[in-house]
């Protein structure tokens, strides 16, 4: 691992953040059906082959992380491995937002769906997974249209060696497009285009399945990478796999129609993925069903094949590593101060403790801490101070740039966390934190390669009750600090693949069997602790007798600090609750639960090793 002194670092410039995608290895369109089969696999943690030896590395932080229970031996080395392979890129025509794409070649011999294949050569075990990280590269033609123009790789099909289709988009997607647009450019989501019941993208309704499919590919966030991990669930029973309402898991090991073998594992053999290179350009040449645009781009697909023979619920199943970057002079100085270091340790102790709860069964393996202050400049001339106040809309750029500064050996295994001072948002106000994607990208250098959190310049001044102490117990912590820890866990949850149990308006839910749903919004039109206590319509399915939140937690009283943090019928007690929790200094407050099936989903992530 490269380490450089700050004084040395400051004299050097970063290589281009996106130099990694500069390679152009276009496969002829004529070869698309057999393109990119396999590819050179790399050892876990081997890093990307696109990072040169002289790539910039942030200097090591003065803060030396110390979290009780965080050990490199927490990694499940004995039974788990993750292999990474970046396949040869495939050229396809870019499709407008209201287009559909086609396997047939256009006039220039290039189709508008990019097809790639890869091989799983050995059994992945019952906890094994496949993650597909797709990027659209070499899209200069589209970039010339508008600085706002983007190309987003969208997975429209994945078939396993037995021919089972994981995505199962409805036929309307290929006849009408993802969006319907008028010649005047008025567009609306084509609700008829959605994964069908039985898809890996689950949901009780078509709109929920559509939401799952879109969210997991960052379609609506406009970043340049699509990250999807299969399996997307792991539970048995309760619902027919093809039922629209049963939330049956298509990866249920006990169902004959499962995507898994009878042994409960993903099949070995050749998988074929098909991607639309969808742009945010709207073609007004026709009302719906447009063909491809004349522009082309390349699909670059990286696979992370995770082999893990551990059975679920068999104790701790692995660990996650973090790269924590202190951004800006103030945060760097705070990290060097004893109080700052103490608080940082306490902060990630919260994260560790929440992640290692029984249902998720993962721990922190290690934290590599870096400093990015004013003496460290990127290739574009920006220093850490330039990013200390990062507008929400620019956080993807922070991820793309900053992820190039962490140790390249951690690519794919370390989650990049940037601690900035504030995250202003011009129209919505100060943001506490944000995850680059659901799930996030194991590849560095993408717009989804990290998470960012606001410290409010308080790393060294949080928790005055712990002044002079070597450690800071929960009972002496401020509410803001405790909430910051929970926010980090929450965003890591997103990064590992979890959605909010219910979105803020209560209309879309996470399609996880054992998380409660709430549909009752409060006066502000969003779900609140109060509204979900009084009007929750769905209960935790595994608890018997079934209880609503209000019956399970009848004495909840914010004024008197009476909470019920372990009651899992209450959605606000789950760590993925869509908004902040009620929490008091000293630790009393709402819970940060991770449901059992949510824990299973997390454990399929390639970051958990």
């Amino acid at each position, binding site marked *: 691992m490269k380490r450089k002194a700050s004084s040395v670092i400051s004299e050097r410039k970063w290589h281009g953040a996106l130099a990694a995608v500069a390679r152009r290895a276009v496969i002829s369109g004529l070869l698309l059906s057999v393109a990119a089969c396999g590819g050179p696999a790399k050892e876990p943690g081997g890093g990307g082959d696109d990072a040169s030896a002289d790539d910039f590395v942030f200097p090591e932080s003065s803060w030396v992380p110390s979290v009780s229970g965080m050990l490199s031996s927490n990694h499940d080395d004995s039974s788990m491995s993750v292999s990474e392979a970046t396949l040869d890129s495939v050229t396809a025509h870019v499709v407008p937002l209201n287009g559909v794409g086609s396997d047939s070649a256009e006039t220039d011999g290039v189709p508008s769906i990019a097809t790639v294949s890869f091989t799983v050569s050995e059994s992945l075990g019952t906890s094994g997974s496949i993650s597909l990280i797709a990027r659209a590269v070499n899209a200069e033609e589209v970039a010339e249209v508008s600085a706002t123009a983007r190309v987003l790789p969208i997975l429209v099909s994945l078939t396993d060696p037995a021919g089972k289709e994981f995505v199962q988009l409805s036929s309307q997607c290929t006849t009408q497009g993802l969006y319907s647009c008028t010649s005047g450019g008025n567009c609306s989501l084509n609700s008829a285009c959605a994964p069908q019941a039985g898809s890996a993208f689950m949901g009780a309704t078509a709109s929920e399945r559509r939401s799952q499919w879109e969210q997991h590919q960052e379609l609506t966030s406009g970043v340049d990478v699509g990250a999807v991990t299969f399996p997307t669930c792991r539970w048995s029973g309760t619902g027919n796999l093809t039922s629209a309402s049963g939330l049956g898991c298509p990866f249920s090991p006990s169902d004959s129609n499962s995507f898994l073998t009878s042994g409960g594992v993903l099949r070995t053999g050749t998988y074929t993925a098909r991607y639309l290179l969808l742009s945010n350009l709207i073609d007004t040449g026709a009302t719906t069903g447009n063909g491809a645009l004349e522009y082309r781009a390349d699909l670059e697909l990286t696979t992370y094949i995770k082999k893990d023979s551990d059975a679920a619920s068999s104790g701790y199943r692995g660990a996650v590593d973090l790269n924590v970057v202190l951004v800006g002079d103030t945060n760097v100085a705070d990290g060097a101060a004893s109080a700052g270091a103490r608080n940082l340790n306490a902060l990630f102790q919260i994260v560790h403790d929440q992640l290692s709860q029984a249902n998720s069964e993962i721990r922190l393996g290690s934290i590599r801490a870096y400093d990015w202050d004013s003496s460290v400049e990127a290739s574009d001339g920006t220093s850490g*101070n330039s990013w200390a*106040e990062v507008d929400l809309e620019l956080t993807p750029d922070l991820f793309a740039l900053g992820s190039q500064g962490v140790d390249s050996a951690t690519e794919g295994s370390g989650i990049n966390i940037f601690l900035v001072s504030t995250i202003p948002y011009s129209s*919505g106000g100060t943001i506490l934190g944000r995850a680059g994607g659901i799930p996030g990208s194991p590849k560095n250098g993408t717009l989804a390669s990290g998470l960012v959190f606001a410290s409010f310049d308080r790393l060294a001044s949080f928790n005055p009750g712990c002044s002079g102490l070597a450690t800071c117990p929960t009972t002496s912590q401020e509410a803001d600090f405790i909430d910051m820890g929970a926010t980090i866990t929450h965003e890591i949850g997103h990064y590992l693949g979890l959605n909010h149990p219910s979105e803020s308006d209560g209309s879309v839910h996470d399609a996880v069997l054992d998380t409660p749903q709430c549909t009752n919004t409060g006066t502000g039109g*969003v779900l609140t602790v109060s509204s979900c206590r009084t009007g929750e319509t769905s209960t935790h399915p595994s608890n018997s007798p079934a209880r609503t939140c209000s019956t399970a937690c009848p004495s909840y009283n914010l004024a008197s600090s009476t909470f019920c943090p372990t009651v899992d019928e209450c959605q606000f007690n789950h760590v993925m609750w869509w908004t902040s929790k009620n929490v008091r200094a000293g630790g009393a407050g709402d819970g940060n639960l991770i449901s059992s099936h949510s824990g299973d989903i997390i454990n399929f992530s390639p970051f958990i090793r």
Partner: protein
Amino acid sequence: MTVLSRMVMLAPLFPALALAVTDAELQERALEKIRERHPSATCAWWNAQGSRMPRVIEQMLESPERMVDRFRLIEGLGCFTDEESVKKVRETAEKADSSVLRMTAVRATARGGAPGTAEWLRGFLAHEDPRTRVAAADALQLTGDARAPGWIDEQAKTEKEAWVARKLKKAASVLPKTPGGMPVVVLPPRSERLRSDSDGQQEAQARLEKRWSGGWSGVRLLRPEKGSSLSPRAVAVRIDIEFKDHRARARFEAAGDIKTRKSLPAAELSEVQVVGGGFTAIFRDRDRVKELAPELRVPGRWEALRLSGELRGSGELPPALLFEVAGIGDKSEPQFWLLLRE
């Protein structure tokens, strides 16, 4: 009918009672909003709570339970333009001992855009704290004041901190931002689209030097949280036109980092019309106006802009002209294509 709505109906008869209930309810609403992890409280939301909300916010600011509460309450108060609210936010910025709070208040002043905000913000461009200088530049741009780019640019020239100068220059080159989402760009009909097949510069010039008209594009927002529609986005157009000796010097600039920044060094414009969102402006060469940006800023939501007029250029002309449009939800600004037809 809920208890709350009954009380609201009783308000005219029992103002004191209703007021107390309303304040408590407003406080609860505010608290729910400011505690959101990803706040959704836009100025439209704050203003919709009514004229009592600023006073409720001020009460809450007296003893905020949480640090973040203070920041977000200030941001909410910044949405109101009554004298007391404006004074409170400005005082917070002027007296804050925390740079984070100061920056929050500075940015908050631009949200409501009370009269005199731009002038007040200008003073912070020279603040001793470099981060505050950047925040002031961002806030100035949010005001949409046409003088802002000039002020920021002026400060950038004398700025000693390199990273601040860089941010100031960037801020000076972009137009105000409005609520986010994924911006989409509407391509014009294929029959009218300027293609890049004019690969010879001479051909491109010949094409541009002819009369042109038409060309529009709508920029809309894809709102992921709703996932159901593309809504028009508020945008503003800036076209810097300077008339000299009955000849126009026009700069059609692309925003941000786009590589195709172009200018027309000696283009001649006449009878230029800009139409959009119920807005029409006609400029003749006799109108010696150095800076037309305020007049050209389209204030409301609109979906399309149409330009017509005559352009006779000389010198090296680009194959396409991009108009700068204020953007949201994206690192770079959306642009318009100016389509050129023979």
